[in-house]
């Protein structure tokens, strides 16, 4: 177990290191890093001052070492647009992103898991057909269009929810549901197929022969075994949720780190973009590690490796 986790931890660190290297290499591949780093309105003198400030005239390896040192200490430079350290802006916006992604994950796992079990237990009936049909549609639906259409229906036409922004719990409903939709479909299909497979096992027949109730068999005997593939996919989902949050936040003007990154792109605020991307990547890495950890806890075979 320890070597399994140590291996995963090393891999995570290598990936994060690779990402900083990629940012650095691409910045220098762009031709003139100063013009990427500068705000769109910079003059020739501004560019020269930026070269001086960022040490762009120093040897490359020195620049890279300084870049890594700055990144590790959380110093990503100042945002041009907001005239404040980029990391401060991100820390302010992080709770909103976590709130959105966390709620979506909860919806996806609880509703998806429940519907998946219900579908498996009632194979071929309307709840099964409906759930699977919903999943197929949800997975083909681009999340930003789903978001727009849900605003149109629930906010504009029915007037049940606000159109965008963050504040009351009502503000959270549409963004969280939109972000959850694809992942809910994934969890639903995985739970369904996992349950169907497990329900065929010998020990289920034994439990049934003992006279246990159908519900007890499903909850105590089938679910724990069907849950493993679901858990491992939830980890991947956790990472993808953070990526998906970038789009959802933009659709609903949700003030999180994802919309901050897009804000940085449109206003050519490179320090802001760089800081958001690296912080989001760290968040994904943490989620992936937690999943590996829970996988070890749930599956004794990995624990004893």
């Amino acid at each position, binding site marked *: 177990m320890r070597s399994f986790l140590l291996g995963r931890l090393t891999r995570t660190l290598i990936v994060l290191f690779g990402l900083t290297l*990629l940012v650095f290499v*691409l910045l220098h591949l762009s031709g003139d890093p100063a013009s990427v780093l500068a705000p769109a309105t910079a003059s020739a003198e501004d560019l020269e001052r930026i070269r001086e400030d960022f040490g762009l005239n120093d040897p490359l390896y020195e620049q890279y070492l300084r870049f890594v040192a700055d990144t590790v200490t959380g110093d990503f430079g100042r945002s041009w647009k907001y005239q404040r350290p980029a990391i401060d802006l991100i820390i302010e916006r992080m709770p909103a992103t976590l709130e959105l992604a966390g709620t979506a994950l909860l919806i996806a796992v609880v509703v998806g898991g429940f519907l998946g079990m219900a579908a498996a237990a009632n194979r071929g009936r309307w709840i099964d057909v409906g759930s699977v049909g919903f999943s197929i549609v949800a997975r*083909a639906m681009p999340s930003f269009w789903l978001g*727009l259409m849900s605003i*149109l229906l629930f906010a504009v036409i029915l007037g049940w929810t606000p159109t965008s922004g963050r504040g009351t719990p009502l503000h959270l409903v549409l963004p969280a549901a939109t972000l959850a939709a694809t992942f809910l479909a994934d969890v639903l299909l995985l739970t369904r197929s996992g349950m169907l497979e497990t329900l065929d096992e010998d020990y289920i027949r034994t439990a049934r022969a003992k006279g246990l109730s159908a519900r007890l068999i499903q909850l105590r005997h089938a679910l724990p075994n069907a849950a493993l593939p679901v858990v491992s996919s939830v980890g991947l989902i956790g990472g993808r949720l953070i*990526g998906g949050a970038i789009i959802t936040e933009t659709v609903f003007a949700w003030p999180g780190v994802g919309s901050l990154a*897009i804000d940085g*792109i449109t206003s050519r605020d490179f320090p802001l*973009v760089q800081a958001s991307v690296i912080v989001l990547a760290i968040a*994904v890495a943490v989620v992936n590690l937690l999943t590996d950890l829970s996988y070890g806890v749930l599956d004794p075979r990995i624990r004893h490796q």
Partner: protein
Amino acid sequence: MSPVGRRTLRILGIPFLRGRYFAGVCLLVLVVLASAVGPLLVGHTPEAQDLTARLLPPLSADHLLGTDALGRDVLARILAGGRLSLFVGFTGAALAATLGVLVGLIAGFREGRIGTIAMGVVDAQLAFPFILLAIVFVATLGASLPMVIVVLALSSWVSFARPIHAMALSIKHRDYVLAARSIGARDATILRRHMLPHVLPTAVVIATIQVAHIVLFESALSFLGMGVPLDIPTWGAMLSDSRRYLQTAPWISIFPGLALVATVFGMSLVGDWMREALDPRREQHG
């Protein structure tokens, strides 16, 4: 006949007039036809602005799907966006397939260090949402059409590399590979003549599904303002512009999205159909 040829024939020979697969093929043919000849039939260019005819509703005289905030014909822009989507989807998937098949085959053929490193990169990329990398690319190198295609191909090559690598690992221990080697065939020849033909059908199936993914991802990039330059009409950019008029002119949000869903759905169905058609377990029915 080569195995590839036989399999291709099998795809063509399969009675595909079955339910959802037939619907998928129809949907795709419709999208391709509309993008190819549609722009010639609409009386407007996608760029033509008419500020006296802003935000006209659908079924207006002369504008079947209405106009947008600059008085541009929505139908003309959707058809032009379809061309861009299909072009980007197919070139991106072709590029991704080339890279992914190459890396997957070579990494599987030379297990050792090269294989470990290559597959390590693949695993790392799969564990991270690619949109973060796309943001880095666009923020540093800017967005042009070729640049976007490269980013899209990079987002998808791992979906080829992983399964092709697994296939290569098993193929390379087959007897005919050993036989080729024993008569002195070089590595490059073995890869090209004896291993590549075996993974091609799989690559074609993956490519079909990846076209759908790439079309979707391109729209997302354009929606976020990170896609191709704004003078090229795209579904994503249309949807992004439409957000401000959701209350007054919802049709400019509805139609580009429907076009996108139809394309992605059709393409995925065709991908599913091809996967089933090429599945060796179906051989006796084929």
